[in-house]
């Protein structure tokens, strides 16, 4: 799949922002006044900034409201509802903390649940795609949720929680990569089923339908070199998981925590780039690109 910067930024940042809001909503930290304002501003910049970035990849952003209509069938529509609901509920809860120093616990819990729902629905947009075997596993929502909660804990300064959740996310990440590498082969879809010519013999793409590129080749047929991908995986893993965990063990908690956050974001951006770039859409088979 084409690794579109807008979607990489969206899923990474809004995941973090919603993760931070979950911990705020659950009352693990109940800042008030200016401190609360700062926490909520960071969370909203991340969550809303991510959502705005995702609007950039739409052909007609001005019709975005229509995307709320199909929640019965569409995960994208459900994501739209849950994100907006989460942001509204958490804004009210945050206003309580900022202006009145009040902790409205039930509202916070509701907001936290909606935030988790928003991250879950985002991940389900990818998980539901039978056309991309690498994504179609329960590990995808598990990884998205673990990263959102772990990164959120990092941002919320919850060191103990982060030290539990980041290793969990790291294990899920490795499992996701390992499973993903053989997902297409195990999916049962290959050029023989794509063309139905397998009964005659072994099919091979002989001549493409067009000599130039088209929407399909640009959007779905991104090929990353194996060595290139392995290097990036190592970088993503070191920056996203290992370094933040090590940094949290250091003295100078504030500097270390800030560095841990930056390193984590950089690592997860790299991991998200791979999430798209390495994903093999089965339409690539028709173009002889998946063998």
């Amino acid at each position: 799949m084409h690794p579109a910067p807008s979607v990489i930024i969206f899923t990474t940042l809004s995941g973090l922002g919603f993760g931070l809001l979950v911990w705020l909503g659950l009352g693990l930290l109940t800042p008030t006044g200016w401190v609360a304002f700062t926490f909520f501003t960071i969370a909203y910049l991340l969550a809303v900034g991510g959502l705005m970035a995702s609007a950039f990849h739409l052909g007609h952003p001005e019709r975005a409201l229509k995307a709320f209509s199909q929640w019965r069938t569409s995960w994208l529509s459900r994501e739209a509802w849950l994100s907006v609901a989460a942001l509204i509920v958490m804004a009210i809860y945050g206003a309580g903390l900022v202006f009145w120093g009040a902790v409205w616990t039930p509202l916070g819990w509701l907001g936290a649940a909606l935030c988790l729902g928003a991250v879950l629905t985002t991940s389900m947009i990818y998980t539901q795609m039978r056309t991309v075997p690498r994504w179609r596993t329960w590990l995808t929502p598990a990884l998205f949720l673990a990263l959102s909660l772990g990164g959120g804990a990092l941002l919320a300064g919850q060191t103990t929680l982060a030290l539990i959740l980041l290793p969990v996310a790291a294990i899920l990440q490795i499992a996701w990569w390992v499973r993903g590498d053989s997902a297409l082969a195990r999916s049962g879809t290959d050029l023989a089923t794509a063309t139905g010519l397998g009964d005659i013999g072994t099919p091979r793409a002989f001549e493409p339908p067009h000599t130039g590129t088209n929407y399909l080749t640009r959007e779905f047929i991104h090929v990353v070199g194996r060595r290139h991908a392995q290097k990036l995986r190592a970088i993503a893993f070191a920056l996203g998981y290992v370094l933040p965990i090590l940094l949290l063990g250091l003295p100078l908690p504030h500097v270390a925590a800030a560095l841990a956050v930056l390193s984590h974001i950089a690592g997860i951006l790299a991991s998200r780039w791979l999430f798209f770039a390495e994903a093999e859409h089965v339409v690539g088979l028709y173009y002889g690109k998946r063998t």
Partner: protein
Amino acid sequence: MTSLPTSTQRKLGLVIDLDTCVGCHACVISCKGWNTENYGAPLSDQRPYGADPSGTFLNRVHSYEVQPESAPAQLVHFPKSCLHCEDAPCVTVCPTGASYKRVEDGIVLVNEADCIGCGLCAWACPYGAREMDAAEGVMKKCTLCVDRIYNENLPEEDRVPACVRTCPAGARHFGDFADPDSHVGQLTAARGGFDLMPEQGTKPVNKYLPPRPRDTLGQTNGLAPFLDPVAQESKGFVAWLDRALAAL
């Protein structure tokens, strides 16, 4: 509404005969010609005369080589457009309701006024049958020429999809698969029409007919004896010339 209908009254679709398709791409051109000036937004081209031309098409013809175990390789031309799936994943993922499957005839369409151009439906289609138009920012796909097949302003023989009407080899057939006695139903039954990527669970309406078995080297036709050279030995001047040339 992007819920799929539980059943449709008719199942309009195409039969594509991989045995007769000659790979001329006439259907590609007639499809683009008709659809760029009729239903919905035009099918734009980017840099058509430049170094890196690109454009939107609703129908494309691939070519594959198949290597049987012990016979010469075969070349198969392979036209591909929307298969108007019964369990169309492209429809249910659409957040706006722009993509839908018609209850009356099963045609899968995009209401372009509602489409936000998110591209999700193209992600969900395993066949690459949807292309986002780079100029209009909306999703384009085969409409089964919905503006021809019911169009009483056209002569009756033209009330079929443009690709079917134009195919010089007769490799494309249009009809109602809900009726087993229809032309397409009978063709599918007689020739073993199959689904593309059945494991994807899309239940395509369009069917493909496999190439017929080829004859093999050494397999002779009843007329072959008549094709043997009549004169085995040359005589006269020709024989002398043969010998003279051989001696050189």
